[in-house]
């Protein structure tokens, strides 16, 4: 049964990773614009993320 000592933490850590990823994406605004995200993949040209240099 010592295998449990590896398996249970492994299962919990993986689950927690999923939860953390979800929380991160939520905080990062990835759920703010679901319709927009669905449509943006259809935008043809790749636009570089414009970060203009500080003046």
């Amino acid at each position, binding site marked *: 049964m010592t295998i*449990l000592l590896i398996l*249970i933490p492994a299962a919990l850590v993986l*689950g927690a990773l999923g939860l953390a990823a979800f929380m991160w994406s939520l905080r990062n605004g990835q*759920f*703010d*614009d679901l319709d927009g995200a669905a449509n943006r993949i259809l935008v043809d040209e790749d*636009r570089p993320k*414009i970060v203009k240099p500080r003046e």
Partner: protein
Amino acid sequence: MVTCCAIGPALDAGSVFAGDMMPWVTQRPDGSFELEMMIPGMTSPQTISTVEEALEGLPGVQFARVNFTGKRLVAGWQDAAFNPNIIAEKLNELGFISRPFDPRDSGLKADDEQSRTLLRAVAVSGFAAANIMLLSVSVWSGAEGSTRDLFHWISAGIALPTIAYAGRPFFRSAVRALSSGQFNMDVPISLAVCLAALMSLYETFNHGEVAYFDASVTLLFFLLTGRYLDHLMRARARSAVSQLLSLSASSAMVVDDGGSTRIIAATALKPEMKMLVAAGERFAADGIVLSGMSEVDRSLISGESNPEPARVGTAVHAGMVNLTGPLTVRLTAAGQDTFLAEVIRLMVSAEQSQSRFVRIADRLARVYSPAVHILAGTTLAGWLLWTGGNWHVSLMTAIAVLIITCPCALGLAVPAVQTVASGLLFRKGVMIKDGAVFEKLSGVDTVVFDKTGTLTKGSLQLANLPGLSLRDLALAAGLAATSRHPLSRAICEAAKSLGVRPVTIDNVEELPGRGLRGMLGRKTVKLGSRLWCEVPESTDRGLPEFILIRGQAKPVFFTFEDELRDDAAAVIATLKAQGLKVEILSGDRDVAVRRTALRLGIEHWQAGVTPQQKLAYIQSLRDAGRKVLVVGDGLNDAPALAAGFTSMAPSSASDIGRTVADTIFMGESLEPVLVARDVARVTQRISIENFVLAVGYNALAVPLAMMGFVTPLIAAIAMSTSSIIVIANSLRLTISIPRHKLTAHMASEKSLPAIPHFVRRAA
């Protein structure tokens, strides 16, 4: 030649925002600046990149990010000297009406925040439920001794913090209900979750066999999902409504003492300021005309469809439209004596007298939650007697009863189906502000319509077209081409629809309150009021009219009428066929209302009704036990809208009308009234089915639980299956009302009166 179509719609509230953007700019902690705008016109996905690319191409703009769901835009820049008004100008150039938007006051940020909190709780409880279930399955499969204890301990370690975190919405609501001496669904929920967790913890301490950690966490997960759906629905409607309101947030031009003019936001207007209102503009505040002569459209205020003259000393109200000439207005205090203040006072009293509507879920909860506690109590007492005072077994069985009866499927029964239904209606331009509206709409037995702007389009159309010669029409259209008066515009539209080319007329001048004058060759032509054209008064037909005078020729009459919405007759007929009583309550004059009522076949109508009388009438209907749906748009309808059992307003309604109405519909058609009611009835039916399924499930399981046969395994299965069945049943709504059918149906207004076929299919 000037064409008529070049004339902007005078009644359109959405003119360009002319104010300064600076007050809406926020500075971020890193020193950069941000501006949020609402762009309600962003409906096609292509606009995302159009807008973003155009704005990022502006010198100085660092980023522009569109939120397509919320129809919002955030733009940012570094340089403090950057003029944010350029952003609005660029958007205007692209053809979008935009408004600055302060997320802090609009309540939308609060909604976003709450929905994030709920979603986080759903995620946490989902994570916990999955992991505890994994451990529980091992226990049920036969883990024993110290292994079982270990699993229980780990479960406890996950479950207790989860319950403390994700259970808060329920605990808070339960405490609130109990402290006001009432029961709601959250009381048994909180009790079941807490007792099950505490009892399981006790069992874990004592190396017991049975723990209910999985049940209490799964319960939370399902219930939070229901709550999140409910919240999502309301937040979506609220966001759409605030978009609409933002469109009419207007600006005003004020004249300083020195005579210079500047444009300020309407909210910054103060009494005693002098406001300049050009022809075609909407008054941003109440006031008294200081100078100028014009006509005003007060249809949103009083329901009166004919323009009225305005001269020095005339009182004007916010919401009226100035039609013909520029006016200078001295603003009056927004004190107790203004029309708006009176309407608001009436509305507040109407809302207070409104008996609180008890939603079906709450009504059920009043019966259900005491029943649950009695059942659990009886079980406890029964087992104590039976086992001769074995507290441990008795308590475990009682908790099993609490868990099994926990209204997990009940919590999902209504939100699930209402979310589906409101999504369906939302795509059709009908915004339901609250789930309770579905329940109210399905119970309605009387519909009271306002006339102007609700049954009618709210704009005047040429009524005596068949009696006119095309030559006269072309002449009148030539005179009217540059005028913004609604009668002139109606003439131009009629000419355009017949393909009549307006005659070119020289030296056209508009005399506010009188009419238009110009030269055709050497002859003077006039188009205007009876008095000005020196035509003797005849029997008043009650319709607005223009008279065309060409030299010495016989005067030609143009009469106008506020045209009915295209499908009004069919909608009224269908409502009556469905057994509803239909009435008209209008502030317009007797003649106009009678004609409308006759044409629509409505027997009960009242004309010239003041807001007070409207309110009193709706209240008298309510006291007579009728459930009234009030459909209206004006400021004068607002108290009646508030007093109605439920209410609808077109999106063209006054701000206050849109705010107070339960449901808002877009577009030229009146059919949303029918569609909303039909969808509400199907929704209500499926909600009740869901209740029956959920309660029936419990009824089967409760005797087993009371007899002590329910193990955590059975509890888990019962709970999940009933929830899944309820959700599956809710999704039936989209199948019952096929989307393409609804679209085709809404798009072709002419296909009436074949309205409720999709609902019949569903039934």
